[in-house]
């Protein structure tokens, strides 16, 4: 069955609710009621109910925080259950807190559990009278079972049973079902039945033996009398067991269901209201195809099996989650695929039908690069026209290109007259891929954390192509994910298409590294520049400075033995400039040290691996490096200095080798602090160091030209602050023609701190082609705004008392608050949330920089930091200018005539 767009089920997002970006917004569990869903977030600390109809938050409850508010101890585990005998009550357990909430928004009770480092709460059960918490006492290796009253939370009873797993295994290998704990112990499944009443004290333990070690236990369905569990063993075999409660006893009987065994199948079970039995849906993905088997469970076997299959529009990998629902006799399957696609498939008698496909991967972008669009054929011909060197050939080129321009113009005119609207759409699509006059439109290549790469056109936001890498795993960059994405060949060489490369790890074996090179316009692979596995384990990858073959740059890899390799293999002397010495710095996480190496390039060497020689080392003690920032590769510095009010020059210290290092730690007085360093990566010297006490990360840093702006949260004053520092050489320049990190320049640092009106999610600076335009800081704030703030407001030279000299220079008087004008919100009311990064690209117009913000949402716009100085305004009156020019020309002719007549008359007098 092919997927036909369905107009019967037109699906669009009706409402959306964005939760907090931090831990409090992390969803633990959703309990679906008829009208509203109860959502537990923040490790069981916040509960809210959203109405399905309009997305209104009906109520919200927050757990009264336990005694120790230190966030380090909050464990990442949280148990939420709906009481089995009273569906309107929800019990929530996190490490030290047990509380009950009713479905209409009332907090019934909350109790603090005893916190001991050895005691760890594991599972939560419910009966009609009790809430049962089992916690592991790692001292005595016993599982404590504590009964709390369902009405008021009073502790009623406690018992303990021997327990053989440690806390971590208990969480990963065990799951609960009704009042049974199922634990996988190698090839053995243990069933531990917890008694539900105080009278019944015998804890029942039974084992089921398997032939292979158990990998995963998944509870597919549970009701008071019946449960269905799938058990996956490590030979990729899945067994489905049905558990039935024996009448009037606490005993459970089980038997295996006879299912068709598929290695990568997923199951979903719903109860069929008509028959009272259960339906089981088995789904599996193979290549671009999804297969479903829907059966009714009757006692031992599956009956009434129907099969469906559907061809997917693209490769989406395996199924990650599957849920089957039967709404008013319409059967829907909701799937989340490995590439984070959300699929809704309708199963009908005439086959399966794809009714919704959303690329949710776009909310997990980790790398962005913008590519210029290709030149139009006319522009290419102009490039050709001036390509020759010989006089005669240049002349011939010129004539031929002009003739071809003329013919193409005539052809276009002919085409316009003959078939005006025939191929409009196709033409528009072609036109969208051609560079516009000012190079304002780009193509964005975005890499997402799941391994899906998209090509997005900026003028429409439309996805041009997408590709899912099934073996993808990103690299880690401190606490974030990162995928190196490079311009191998830029769009400047119009005879060759541009190329982009991504480097990623293998999903299964993290030692394998893949390089994939593709054309950013089409997504087609360049097989000659792609490799499935590099023969060495890589520490770091970067791009060569020199163009090697076919206008392509090569990738340079530092391997585990500190040897440099190139891919594709070329001599290093061709990949890197031999006249400029090259230094390489690497940050070692284990040592918390930056190590600088000198790279010796041997001109005669044909082998591409070369050793590194350590030249410096900067180690951090008692503080932990949390991130490093470099300046943008497109950063341009236009002027070498700042003109002061008395017309002298303050020269900028523009060291291209500086990086910003952010560290965090706790000092001897137990005060947390954050430090910022500017490290010269050639010499290893620190050019700036700031330490802020009682300050919390996240620290966002922008490093550009000769300045740095960073933001942090001030815990003492409970506000977000920004610090701006500039580095200057002084009144005289050490060397006006070249810059070396070894020059004995002690930069003069000027700094100012400012108070920000909002928190900061991401921060970036605008980029323009030549760097003449003044800079703006683009800031994404938690309430969904993107704010453009002139860097002038962050200028560390803003004076306390404004003298006439400062006024001459155009400085603004220092005020600690950065006032944000609502006009400077560049996304107006199109709010974008949880922005993780901002990418700025220069355009062909010096005044214009384009901004792409990504996170949960994406936003793209153009900004004009110095207004439109090289462009006419939109409301420029061309008609008025045109007509007044015509009027002046005509008027001058008339006036000339009159003047001649007048002259003659005067002569006759």
């Amino acid at each position, binding site marked *: 069955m092919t997927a036909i767009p369905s107009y019967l089920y037109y699906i669009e997002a009706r409402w959306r609710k964005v939760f907090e970006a931090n831990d409090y917004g992390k969803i633990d569990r959703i309990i679906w009621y008829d009208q509203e869903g109860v959502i537990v977030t923040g490790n069981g600390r916040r509960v809210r109910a959203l109405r399905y109809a309009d997305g209104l938050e009906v109520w919200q409850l927050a757990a009264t925080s336990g005694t120790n508010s230190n966030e380090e101890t909050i464990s990442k585990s949280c148990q939420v259950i709906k009481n089995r005998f009273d569906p309107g009550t929800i019990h929530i357990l996190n490490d030290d807190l047990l509380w009950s909430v009713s479905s209409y928004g009332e907090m019934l009770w909350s109790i603090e559990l005893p916190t001991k480092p050895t005691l760890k709460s594991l599972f939560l059960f419910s009966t009609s009278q009790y809430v049962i918490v089992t916690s592991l006492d790692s001292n005595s290796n016993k599982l404590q079972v504590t009964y709390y009253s369902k009405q008021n939370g009073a502790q009623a009873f406690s018992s303990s049973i021997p327990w053989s797993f440690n806390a971590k295994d208990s969480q990963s290998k065990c799951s609960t079902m009704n009042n049974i704990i199922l634990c996988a112990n190698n090839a053995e499944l243990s069933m531990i039945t917890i008694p539900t009443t105080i009278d019944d004290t015998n804890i029942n333990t039974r084992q089921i033996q398997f032939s292979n070690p158990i990998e995963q236990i998944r509870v597919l369905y549970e009701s008071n009398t019946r449960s269905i569990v799938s058990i996956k063993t490590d030979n990729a075999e899945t067994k489905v067991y049905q558990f039935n409660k024996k009448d009037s006893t606490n005993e459970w009987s089980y038997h295996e269901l006879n299912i068709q065994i598929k290695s990568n199948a997923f199951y979903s079970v719903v109860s069929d209201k008509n028959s009272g039995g259960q339906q089981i849906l088995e789904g599996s993905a193979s290549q671009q195809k999804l297969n479903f088997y829907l059966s009714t469970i009757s006692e031992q076997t599956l009956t009434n099996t129907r099969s469906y299959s559907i061809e997917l529009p693209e490769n989406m990998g395996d199924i990650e989650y599957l849920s089957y629902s039967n709404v008013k006799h319409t059967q829907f399957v909701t799937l989340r695929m490995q590439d984070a696609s959300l699929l809704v498939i309708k199963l009908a008698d005439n086959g399966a039908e794809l009714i919704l496909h959303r690329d949710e991967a776009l909310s997990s972008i980790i790398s962005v690069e913008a590519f210029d669009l290709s030149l139009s054929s006319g522009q290419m011909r102009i490039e050709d026209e001036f390509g020759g060197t010989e006089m005669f050939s240049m002349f011939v080129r010129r004539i031929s290109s002009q003739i071809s321009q003329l013919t193409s113009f005539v052809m276009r005119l002919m085409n316009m007259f003959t078939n005006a609207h025939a191929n409009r759409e196709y033409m528009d699509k072609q036109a969208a891929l051609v560079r516009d006059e000012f190079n304002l439109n780009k193509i964005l290549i975005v890499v997402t954390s799941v391994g899906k790469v998209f090509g997005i056109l900026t003028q429409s936001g439309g996805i041009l192509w997408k590709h899912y890498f099934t073996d993808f795993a990103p690299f880690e960059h401190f606490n974030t994910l990162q995928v190196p994405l490079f311009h191998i060949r830029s769009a400047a060489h119009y005879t060759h298409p541009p190329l982009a490369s991504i480097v990623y790890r293998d999903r299964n074996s993290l030692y394998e590294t893949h390089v994939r090179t593709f054309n950013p316009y089409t997504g087609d692979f360049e097989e000659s520049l792609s490799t499935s596995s590099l023969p060495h384990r890589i*520490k*770091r990858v970067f791009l060569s400075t020199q163009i090697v073959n076919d206008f392509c740059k090569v990738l340079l890899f530092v391997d585990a033995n500190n040897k440099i390799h190139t891919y594709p293999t070329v001599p290093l002397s061709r990949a*890197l400039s031999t006249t400029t010495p090259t230094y390489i710095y690497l940050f070692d996480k284990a040592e918390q040290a930056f190590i600088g190496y000198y790279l010796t390039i041997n001109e005669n060497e044909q082998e591409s691996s070369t050793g590194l020689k350590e030249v410096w080392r900067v180690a951090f003690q008692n503080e932990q490096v949390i991130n490093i920032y470099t300046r943008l590769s497109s950063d341009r510095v236009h002027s070498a200095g700042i003109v002061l009010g008395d*017309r002298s020059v303050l020269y900028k210290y523009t060291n291209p080798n500086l990086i910003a290092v952010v560290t965090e730690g706790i000092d001897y007085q137990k005060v947390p602090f954050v430090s910022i360093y500017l490290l010269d990566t050639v010499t290893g010297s620190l050019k700036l160091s700031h330490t802020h006490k009682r300050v919390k990360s996240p620290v966002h840093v922008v490093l550009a030209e000769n300045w740095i702006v960073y933001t942090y949260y001030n815990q003492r004053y409970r506000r977000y602050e920004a610090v701006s520092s500039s580095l200057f050489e002084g009144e005289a320049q050490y060397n006006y023609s070249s*810059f070396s990190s070894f020059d004995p320049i002690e930069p003069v640092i000027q700094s100012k701190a400012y108070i920000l009106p909002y928190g900061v999610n991401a921060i970036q600076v605008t980029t323009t082609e030549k760097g003449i335009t003044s800079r703006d800081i683009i800031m994404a704030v938690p309430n969904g705004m993107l704010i453009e703030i002139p860097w002038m407001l962050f200028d560390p030279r803003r004076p306390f008392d404004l003298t006439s000299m400062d006024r001459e220079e155009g400085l603004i008087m220092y005020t600690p608050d950065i006032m944000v004008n609502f006009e400077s919100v560049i996304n107006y009311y199109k709010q974008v949330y949880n922005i993780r990064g901002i990418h700025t690209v220069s355009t062909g117009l010096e005044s214009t920089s384009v901004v792409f913000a990504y996170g949960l949402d994406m936003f793209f716009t153009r900004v004009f930091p110095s207004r439109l100085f090289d462009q006419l305004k939109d409301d420029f009156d061309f008609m008025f200018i045109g007509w007044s020019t015509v009027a002046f020309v005509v008027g001058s002719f008339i006036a000339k005539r009159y003047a001649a007549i007048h002259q003659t008359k005067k002569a006759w007098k």
Partner: protein
Amino acid sequence: MTSQHSTTNTSTRPTPSRRKWFIDFQVRRNDRLSVTTNENNTTVLANTNSTKLLVSPLGFSEQRLSDLLTHEDDEHLLARRSWDIALQPIKQLPMNVVLAWMAGNSFSLMSIMIVVMLFMKPIQAIFSLSSAFSSLQQEGLVGNIWLHKIMYFLGNLTHLALALYKCQSMGLLPTYNSDWIAFADQQTQMEMSFGGVTYF
């Protein structure tokens, strides 16, 4: 009857005349046309038909005699007139200084116009240096006036200096480093560095 009196400077020093030429319609009895006989035969022939030509008496001179020696007077006048012209720019200088001072150092239409005028006038004057002294020649005063020309030139240079000073005080002259900073090339990088955090 026509009669032409042409002033010729070739042979003798001519009497200073206010007219280059004139037509005399008066018919005189003793018309002195005899002098032109050998030059203009047609007129002579025409005249002979109507009137009887008389020969000038002895001692008659065509030149009107002046009763003073003009030569020394010319020298004196030349000196006075040429010094007048030569010192004219210097005399104008104080006025221009006042004008420049009045214009102020701020940029406005007036001050820009005055600066332009301060530049234009002396440059024009220098280029039209010979024509400034040509009125002397018209008056027939000829002499050695190179010193005066130099003086005139120097005087105009003072005007130019004033204009430059005005520009300087208005900040229009590129005399500071800051005026040349836009033309400075980017510094070349002596070292390259790459790197970052290790992936494992």
